[in-house]
């Protein structure tokens, strides 16, 4: 039995942050019903990577919305709104990411909804928090990465600010939303009361920089300085980074420089013997190492470093990684099936409970696919 069985989540959220939270709750056993605009449905259905669609919805939508149901309702239509309110009265959780003021206008703001269902956990995702000069600005992943300082941490010194090439802000915001909602469900068991949980892309993206921000706040506000080459972390001393070898690359994480030099078979220049230089002279040291590491293949270096339990690894692309037996042993992928009979291979939930991996065949729903059954089950027909 999955831990969230019996929990019903109504997802008014769109795009990635909110829906990724819904997906995690679904994987953990909750029933997640997307509330969508009739016809077009949630806006994320139209956003595609590489122009790839599965049916009328994009592959990305299918990735973030598998294992959910869909109920189509026009929130501006009073009859539909009544149905939704009746559904809310029977739900445990609802989530949305409308810009501030929109739910008030519709009449599904927290105060109104809490009067209908005082036990409801109400989760809100915003770009920048509910108030303030940026509250109504669009909150989008790349924009938040860019203005939160996050893009100044990756890439080399001379590079442009470098974003992570995936929806990092969305994903962490979704993760934090789940944490808040689950904590509130735990508290509800004691108090019988619901709660409003709010997260924002900006705060979540600052949170994942907490280690660096703590350094920044306590070291006289020195900004991060990326390494000249092979940068993997602006704050960690040499040899931490990525190096070119004769045939590929090698990543070297926390490994004492003196031991590394010895294993490579070179003597460490006197100027690098003092450990404090490993950060202060990082670029010189990395340059020195790069000249040595490029002389042999990655396999050669791994055959020396791995038996010494150095923190090193090869660098793979998807083709190499996903074909590797190390990946295959995880059974990390699964096939999901749409109601049209289309099969899509995607990843599963990374959390295992009681030793079991969590799989689910259900794909993302079409807009309104579950209206009839939900009307019957939640007794919404009478309206």
């Amino acid at each position: 039995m999955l831990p969230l069985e019996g929990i019903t989540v109504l997802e008014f959220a769109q795009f990635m942050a909110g829906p990724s939270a819904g997906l995690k709750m679904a994987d953990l056993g909750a029933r997640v019903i997307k509330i969508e605009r009739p016809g077009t449905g949630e806006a994320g259905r139209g956003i595609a990577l590489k122009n790839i669609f599965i049916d009328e919805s994009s592959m990305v939508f299918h990735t973030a919305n598998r294992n959910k149901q869909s109920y189509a309702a026009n929130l501006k239509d009073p009859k539909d709104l009544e149905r939704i309110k009746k559904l809310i009265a029977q739900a445990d959780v609802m989530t949305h990411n409308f810009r501030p003021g929109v739910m008030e206008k519709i009449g599904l703001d927290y105060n109104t909804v809490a009067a209908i269902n005082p036990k409801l956990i109400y989760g809100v995702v915003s770009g920048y928090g509910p108030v303030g000069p940026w509250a109504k600005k669009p909150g989008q992943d790349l924009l938040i990465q860019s203005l939160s300082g996050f893009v100044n941490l990756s890439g080399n010194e001379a590079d442009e600010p470098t974003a992570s090439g995936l929806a990092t802000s969305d994903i962490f915001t979704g993760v934090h939303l789940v944490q808040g909602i689950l904590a509130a469900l735990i508290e509800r068991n004691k108090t019988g009361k619901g709660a409003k949980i709010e997260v924002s892309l900006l705060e979540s993206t600052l949170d994942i920089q907490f280690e660096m921000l703590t350094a920044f706040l306590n070291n006289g506000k020195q900004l991060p300085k990326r390494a000249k080459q092979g940068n993997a972390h602006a704050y960690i001393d040499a040899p931490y980074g990525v190096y070119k070898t004769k045939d590929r690359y090698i990543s070297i994480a926390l490994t004492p420089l003196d031991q590394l030099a010895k294993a490579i078979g070179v003597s460490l220049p006197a100027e690098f013997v003092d450990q404090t230089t490993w950060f202060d002279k990082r670029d010189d040291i990395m340059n020195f190492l790069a000249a040595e590491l490029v002389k042999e293949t990655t396999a050669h270096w791994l055959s020396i470093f791995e038996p010494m339990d150095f923190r090193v690894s090869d660098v793979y692309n998807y083709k190499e990684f996903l074909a590797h037996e190390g990946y295959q042993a995880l059974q990390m992928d699964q096939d999901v099936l749409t109601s049209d009979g289309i099969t899509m291979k995607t990843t599963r939930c990374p959390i295992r409970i009681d030793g079991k991996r969590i799989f689910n065949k259900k794909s993302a729903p079409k807009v309104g696919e579950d209206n009839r059954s939900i009307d019957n089950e939640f007794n919404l027909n009478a309206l």
Partner: protein
Amino acid sequence: MSKPLEGILVVDFSQYLSGPSASLRLADLGARVIKIEKPETGDLCRDLYFSNLVLDDESSMFHAINRNKESYAADLKNDVERQKVYKIIEKADVLIHNFRPGVANRLGIDYDKIKALNPQIIYAELTGYGKEGVWKDKPGLDLLIQSLTGLTTLNGNDGAGPVPIGLAVVDILSGAHLAQGILASLYQKQSQHVGAKVEVSMLESAIEYQFESITCFFRDGGQPTLRPKSNSAHAYLGAPYGIYATKNGAIALAMGSIPFIGELIGCEALSNYPEPESWFTKRDEIKGILAQHLKTKKTKDWLAVLELADIWCAEVMDWKTLFDQEAFKILEMVQEVNRTNGYTYKTTRCPIQINGDWLTSEIGSPILGEHTEAINEELVN
């Protein structure tokens, strides 16, 4: 304000960042977290310095991750001390560790042993690579997992080689997933009165993090990941998605209609791309044109035009610039915390808001073993 996890006791054996970031979040949400640390050395993170920065004799990283926790020093290899730790575990709701496979057994805190002591405990285990397969005994470090899983092929421009994300994103995400599993299991524990084992690996978390691009790889027949030649911010998205230099800084542009943006910024060449499909297939061309054009004016001038038309754009900021913004200040994201020896430092707060309140705490990181005696008196003797 009361916090949702008040009354929950977490016994945390984990070190470095992954596991401790999970227990930090549980502490933020109101749980009591007791770190069990090896006498004398303690959590090895205490000595893992960032830019040689020493705060109160220890690393800034340790202080960031371990605020709002207690420290109990015990040598698990010593039978008397291990028995004391068992007494604490008997009263705990959650146990966390991030030892490599086999170590928990040797220390006498494997799941079977702990379950026998406390059948309703949530036993949470974070590994690098899981407990099966050829990688299981490898050291689980963030950069290595980024490198293995293809994550370094997603960032930066085509031709740049592997570009890791410059923070311990996999540590933090796997810790967050562990916290999710723990919270879900605590919820179930309340209603069903059952314990659970929760397992997360950094490897699996790193894969789920890339669920969009990996699903894309499965779908497109396994084509190589191809990053844009310039201004890359996503290998699988079309123009204008990226960061562009301006006359005095940089601007980020997310999704948007190319001809419309061209019209707004006065760049006629962009009218040659009316087909949305071409924004992906010809993105290198389009990005080249945009990059040349956006260099000609200041960030603020572009924002004035683009924001007005509701184009998704933002100024690229460093922390100093961000911290000066009114929109940042009102978030009160920075809090000051105190160690019991009087040392004070600044750090960030939990990003989750409950009923309009931020979750803050003034308690700093513990000195190694500072709560051993008090905990002995309260929970052991």
